[in-house]
């Protein structure tokens, strides 16, 4: 907020971190593995608006880092964005664009539009030449109607009636290509999205756990978190505990770690939080 502070921002891209990274990689220190969402994300247009869908598995190399993460991000009340790729990149990029959309809406006095978010996202991603690993499915309904876009990490966009992204995109697209039709009802669209994400969950290692969906129409947005849970953990058939005495021991020594305990009362005044 300092009015006087100026930082000189030179023109053009700053690749100084790339030079450093290449130097380190040559000497045997590779970049740390970012958490990737692996992922199956989809979007599809139906009669009254858009349905977005996503799985909920986040991977860190071969390990599942989060079994129930949220991949459908808030942009505005009627616009949401699914994110595949590097989890941190999708989180922060969508949060930043969401903030800027709110500022834009306040300053223009108009309800925000999906193309505005798309333009902001693509210009940001292109500026970073693909280094921001965010592959997004952006959908929403605005004053001009429902719109669905995909945005690739390098900044290219496509506008389509049904889209899939992520490592499970081929499995999901196979389902869409077989079953998508124009002017579906809400139930048909949700079933289709469920089938597409499930195809990704079961056939792609990078996707798994539950299905999230979000239905956006002109009048309301319904966030259906974990709307289908095809991978719930079953209760085990028997207990696997061991009874006491299973392991024989020859010697027992019990030490009390608390040698001396003295309780001193503290001042009774409450913390002064009301700093006015």
């Amino acid at each position, binding site marked *: *907020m300092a*009015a006087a502070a100026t930082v000189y921002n030179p023109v053009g891209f700053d690749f100084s971190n790339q030079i450093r990274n290449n130097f380190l990689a040559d000497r045997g220190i590779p970049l740390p593995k970012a958490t990737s969402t692996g992922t199956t994300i989809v979007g599809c247009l139906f009669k009254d608006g858009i349905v977005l869908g996503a799985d909920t598995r986040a991977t860190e190399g071969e390990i599942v880092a989060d079994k129930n993460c949220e991949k459908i991000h808030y942009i505005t009340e009627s616009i949401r964005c699914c994110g595949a790729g590097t989890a941190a990149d999708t989180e922060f990029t969508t949060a*930043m664009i969401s*903030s800027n959309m709110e500022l834009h809406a*306040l300053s223009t006095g108009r309800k925000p539009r999906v193309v505005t978010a798309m333009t902001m996202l693509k210009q940001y991603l292109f500026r970073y030449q693909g280094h921001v690993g965010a592959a997004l499915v952006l959908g929403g309904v605005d004053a001009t109607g429902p719109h669905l876009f995909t945005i690739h990490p390098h900044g290219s966009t496509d506008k389509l009636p049904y889209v899939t992204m992520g490592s499970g995109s081929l499995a999901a697209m196979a389902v869409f290509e077989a079953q998508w039709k124009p002017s579906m009802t809400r139930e048909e669209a949700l079933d289709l999205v469920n089938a597409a994400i499930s195809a990704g969950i079961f056939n792609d290692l990078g996707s798994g756990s539950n299905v999230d969906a979000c239905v956006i129409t002109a009048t309301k947005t319904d966030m259906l978190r974990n709307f289908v849970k095809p991978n719930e953990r079953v209760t085990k058939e028997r207990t696997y505990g061991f009874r006491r005495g299973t392991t024989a021991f020859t010697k027992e020594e019990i030490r009390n770690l608390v040698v001396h305990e003295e309780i001193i009362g503290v001042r009774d005044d409450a913390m002064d939080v009301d700093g*006015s």
Partner: protein
Amino acid sequence: MASADGGAYSYSLTVFSPSGKLVQIEHALAAVSQGTTSLGIKASNGIVIATEKKSSSILVDDSMIERVAVICPNIGIVYSGMGPDFRVLVARARKSAQAYWKIYGEYPPTRVLTQELANIMQQATHSGGIRPFGVSLLVAGWDVNRGSTLYQVDPSGSYWAWKASAIGKNMVNAKTFLEKRYNDDISLEDAIHTALLTLKEGFEGQMTEKTIEIGVVTVPTEEDLEGWSISSANTRPKPTFRKLTEEEVRDYLAL
């Protein structure tokens, strides 16, 4: 040197007068007192802020004038004084609210935003070559810590909380009027009604839904609060501040 208007000490902001005043700030306050009247009243279940929307001529398209501004869903502000200065402050306040959201995942409490605005206005009194902002602001908002609060910020950067206040041309009469009519348990409906009566006192011309602007802070119910506490990063809280539409203002005027 020390004449009534400050004399030689009145032209530079960074020079104190012998009586210990920054005369430029006094002049800024005078600019505010020439602005159209605005007022705010804190009720037991909300806050109302209101202002006259006076155009310099009937040819002005007054649907484009915005004097009550939304900063973020829980805070709104109104001003008296120089319009352009207000516009700049509103833009800064909105950016500041978003910056706070990005760090804390919630919108700033009213007092935090007020302090931010007050700091911006104070910085303009602390540098050479720039002038103070020629506006006083009334900031109204709701947050979970303090409930509904109403603050006034002056060109000097000082701010303090009010139960009811008025700024601008008619502030003296308006404040006297408010002092008589205010009580701690006033309801929001009564507060809106009182605000309209207070504005009417000093109003030049016809008071219609097109010549006044009203903003209202409402207190969320228990269920709203429940809903917010279980919301994730993927929802935003419902707005507690909103501007009344022309139809709503007309209905209140008809009462």
